């Protein structure tokens, strides 16, 4: 919290002088460590603007490929019958805005700046699919991710101190994907983006879990053998106290 206060003071000092920059913002921390017992994390974003306006914050996780499958009924059983693979799918995507997005800026502007779930640029691996089918699968992808709380758009949540200073809490769920994130902050005035800034955020496993995961990935065979050995040793040890039973 001391760090947060310091940052706030810094911004207070910067705000009146920084007339050249309409928007200055930063995160209190650029690193989130996932350790044993991780149940989610909050990262605080502080910012200052040079006057009234709307603020939009876009948090984007690393891109991955994702397969969407659709079930249909075959001989009385529900099974996957259609699938579509999307590329460039952000593993996490959250938009925070001071007011609903469509009140802040027109759709064309949002498309231009890649703001909002409707403007995710997803590619598909499969060719020759109808636009309706792609749209249907894309909607399903976004719906599923929303249910897992990995995609979100929220209005409000900004705490303004006067008209120029604000802070916002970015809340990440327990199963947040790891990797390099970007946090984009936009200042919008009269339906135009007048200021923007990008801040990096790195989410990573740390401590014993990170080491286990890293080992499992890099040296899969040794990891497998070790996993077997540990389980076997444990099994043998556990049979000792009951020897005379």
């Amino acid at each position, binding site marked *: 919290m001391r760090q947060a206060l310091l940052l706030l003071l810094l911004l207070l000092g910067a705000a009146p002088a920084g007339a050249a920059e309409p928007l200055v913002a930063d995160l209190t921390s650029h690193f989130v460590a996932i350790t044993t*017992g991780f149940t989610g994390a909050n990262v605080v974003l502080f910012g200052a603007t040079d006057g009234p306006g709307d603020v939009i914050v876009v948090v984007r996780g690393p891109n991955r490929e*994702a*397969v969407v499958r659709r079930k249909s009924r075959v001989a009385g059983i*529900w099974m996957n019958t259609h699938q579509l693979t999307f590329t460039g799918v952000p593993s996490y995507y959250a938009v925070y805005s001071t007011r609903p997005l469509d009140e802040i800026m027109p759709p064309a502007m949002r498309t231009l700046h890649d703001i909002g779930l409707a403007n995710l640029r997803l590619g598909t691996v499969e060719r020759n699919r109808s636009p309706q089918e792609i749209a249907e699968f894309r909607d399903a992808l976004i719906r599923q991710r929303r249910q897992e709380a990995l995609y979100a758009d929220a209005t409000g949540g900004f705490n303004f101190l006067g008209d120029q200073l604000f802070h916002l809490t970015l809340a990440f769920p327990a199963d947040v994907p790891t990797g390099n994130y970007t946090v984009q902050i936009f200042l919008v005035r009269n339906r135009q983006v007048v200021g923007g800034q990008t801040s990096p955020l790195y989410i990573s496993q740390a401590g014993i879990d990170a080491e286990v995961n890293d080992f499992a*990935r890099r040296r899969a*065979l040794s990891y497998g053998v070790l996993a077997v050995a540990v*389980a076997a040793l444990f*099994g043998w040890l556990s049979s000792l106290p*009951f020897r005379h039973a």
Partner: protein
Amino acid sequence: MDIYLPIAAMSQDVFVLLALGGAVGFLSGVFGVGGGFLLTPLLIFIGVPHMVAVASSANQLVGASVSGAVAHWRRGNIDFHMGIVLLIGGFAGSASGVWLFALLRRMGQIDLAISLAYALLLGTLGTLMLAESTRAMLRLRRPGAGRRKLHQHIWLHGLPFKMRFRRSKLYISALLPLSLGFFVGVLSAVMGVGGGFVMVPAMIYILGMPTAVVPGTSLFQIIFVAASVTVLQAVENGAVDAVLALVLLVGGVIGAQLGTRFGMLLRGEQLRALLALLVLAVAAKLAFDLTIRPADPFSLETLGQ
């Protein structure tokens, strides 16, 4: 208290996992089967990805079967000769199974395959076991029932490559235990089960082994099949969560000891009838779930994590 599972990449309450391991261990103690056929579906139910559930169950099974096999070994109830022949089939089966698993996964049909395999196999076994234990209970009511033969000879025993298994008092074709081992190896890889619930009845009714050496020999070969599945799953699919497996083991060991004591209070055929009902209930639930309209026909899998 939550614990973060590094491979499943999720937080889970450690007491839920301990209770799960304990409950499955209890059942395995009561009935003398591995309990993997309940553990995998339960893990999937609490949100562990299908693949990780199957692979980590195999890992915990290594520990659980070592624990059980040591107890049987002390009583001299393992037919090592039979175990090794089963094992050769088992290794080939688990390698094919892991390959099949990867293939089904690419086709997007792994979840269906797992559910269907469970429903069919458990349904058949449950029915057979229920019929057998009912007959046994009826036979006990009738006084003066004849002593059973040592074992029934069936035509399968006469296939070529005959081998002598002294501990089991058998002289049968090696092809029989080899193919049984292979089949159970495939099941182990695809379903994350030790296959005790298939192996044990097959050893009794198909191979004709004496009941006393069946659980020990089954556990002995499951150790190695589960170990090979764990290593193959780690290399092929990167899906083994050793932390999850270890927490499940801790619960399982305690549960198994309590279960064994509880099991001694019940009679054999009653126990088998109970297990049959349990198996049938799981099969019915799985089959039913396949036929109801899913809440959302779409599902999502993220690649390259």
